[in-house]
């Protein structure tokens, strides 16, 4: 019994310690904006590896998710004779939910895990210490550009996901199942609201990008500098990012679409 409380205590202390270190880490990374502003090439390089290299997985997944939405939507809506509304259903599901959420989960698996492993290995091979001894702040030099790249790329990737998903839904609904092309688009156009749907979806993906990138970078920076430590940190990145994204999604949905 006593053992249980001791362990609970030390787990709690560890959790709070991590939150504290994470907060300092975030502030430190934010303080590097000026440094990166003077060296835009650092940012471009990271946007390439975090963003551009995720295009393929995001596009293919978006296409399949859109196609599935087209199929399922058609089965359900045609029961009510409302298959003309397929465009709205596909677009609303993608823009409000599936675009931001699924692309954030894919982002955590593809880019987040790579970031954690990269930074963990840099720590293990003393590259971060080495930079410090050369009087260069490794957080500003290594972390800040990656953080910014994640923030910028996540909403763009989510938009790409949704756009390709809509095309997938169109391909199935209009191309295969014979939904009327005109009403597919016109109903979508009249029902999807720019502010209520698209901006809110963008805000979601910005929040997800912020959390997934921060988690990935912090886990890498905070890991034990051994091969086991790096591998555990990579796992934690994927698991914690998934929890964070899904949990935040619930909160944001309740706040945004409640009324």
């Amino acid at each position, binding site marked *: 019994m006593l053992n249980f409380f001791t362990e609970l205590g030390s787990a709690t202390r560890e959790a709070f310690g991590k939150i504290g270190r994470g907060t300092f880490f975030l502030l430190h990374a934010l303080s590097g904006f000026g440094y990166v502003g003077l060296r835009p090439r650092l940012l471009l390089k990271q946007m390439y590896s975090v963003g551009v290299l995720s295009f393929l997985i995001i596009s293919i997944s978006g296409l399949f998710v859109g196609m599935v939405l087209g199929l399922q939507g058609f089965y359900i809506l045609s029961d009510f004779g409302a298959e003309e509304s397929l465009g709205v259903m596909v677009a609303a599901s993608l823009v409000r939910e599936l675009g931001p959420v699924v692309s954030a989960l894919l982002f955590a698996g593809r880019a987040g895990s790579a970031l954690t492993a990269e930074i963990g290995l840099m720590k293990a091979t003393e590259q971060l210490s080495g930079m410090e*001894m050369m*009087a260069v702040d490794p957080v500003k030099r290594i972390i800040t550009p990656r953080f910014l790249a994640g923030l910028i790329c996540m909403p763009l990737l989510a938009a790409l996901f949704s756009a390709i998903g809509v095309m997938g839904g169109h391909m199935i609904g209009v191309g295969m199942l014979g939904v009327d092309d005109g009403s597919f688009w016109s109903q979508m156009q009249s029902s999807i609201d720019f502010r209520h749907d698209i901006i809110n979806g963008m805000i979601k993906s910005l929040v997800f990008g912020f959390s997934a990138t921060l988690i990935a970078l912090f886990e890498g920076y905070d890991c034990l500098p051994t091969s086991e430590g790096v591998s555990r940190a990579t796992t934690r990145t994927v698991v914690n990012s998934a929890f964070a994204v899904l949990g935040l999604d619930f909160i944001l949905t309740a706040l945004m679409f409640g009324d």
Partner: protein
Amino acid sequence: MSNNEQNIVSIRNLCFSRGARKIFDGVSLEIPRGKITAIMGPSGTGKTTLLKLIGGQLRPASGQVIFDGSDVHSLSTRELFNLRKKMGMLFQSGALLTDMNVFDNVAFPLREHTRLPEPLIRSLVLIKLQAVGLRGARMLMPNELSGGMARRVALARAIALDPLMIMYDEPFTGQDPISMGVLVHLIKSLNQILGLTSIIVSHDVRETAEIADYIYLLADGKIIAQGAPRELEQSDSAWVQQFLHGYADGPVHFHYSADEYFADLLSGVN
């Protein structure tokens, strides 16, 4: 203080712990300018930790580290960063940045801390690479270098900003005899030609004794012996003799402390 002019680093009463374990318990030592000073001791005694304390990457629980007249641990971050430009450190693994080639690695500190035009940076980098014999390897990536070459590149990078002092962390570990010889020669000649001060942390007795002017032996959180290599050789301390000659048993036991052997075998529980 004239002491400051003579000694580039003075460590006074340094204490440092990792968790419950005391790594240093009142260590004091002086690193004289222009000399090669070695800090030796078994693995895990805290040699790397000592270098990180000198470089201000770790904070001591108590005690002082004075480098070139300033107390390292009372400086602001900015002052500390400026101080670090005066010290180079060669990490055990080389710590080259793996996403840049040799040239860019050596140019890195120059590009970060100076606004020199690119042609001048190029000349400086080539001069440094020439000094370590790797001018021809400038386009290679770090993963294409052998261990010895990686350390020499790291050395070129460490001298890029013309520091006053270089700290070498285990420069000889894991090197083949030829690169070992090259490194020994390089450390000694750079120290002379560039008028540097060198601190070598090592447990390779022969190579270190060959070039060090003065040796500190570190064990169990304390300096247990010091002197010029010759003097230590003549020391009558059993510990020093065991360390210098690598005897398997002596004051440091081969066996980690354990219960009595037979009782342990027969007891059947852990």
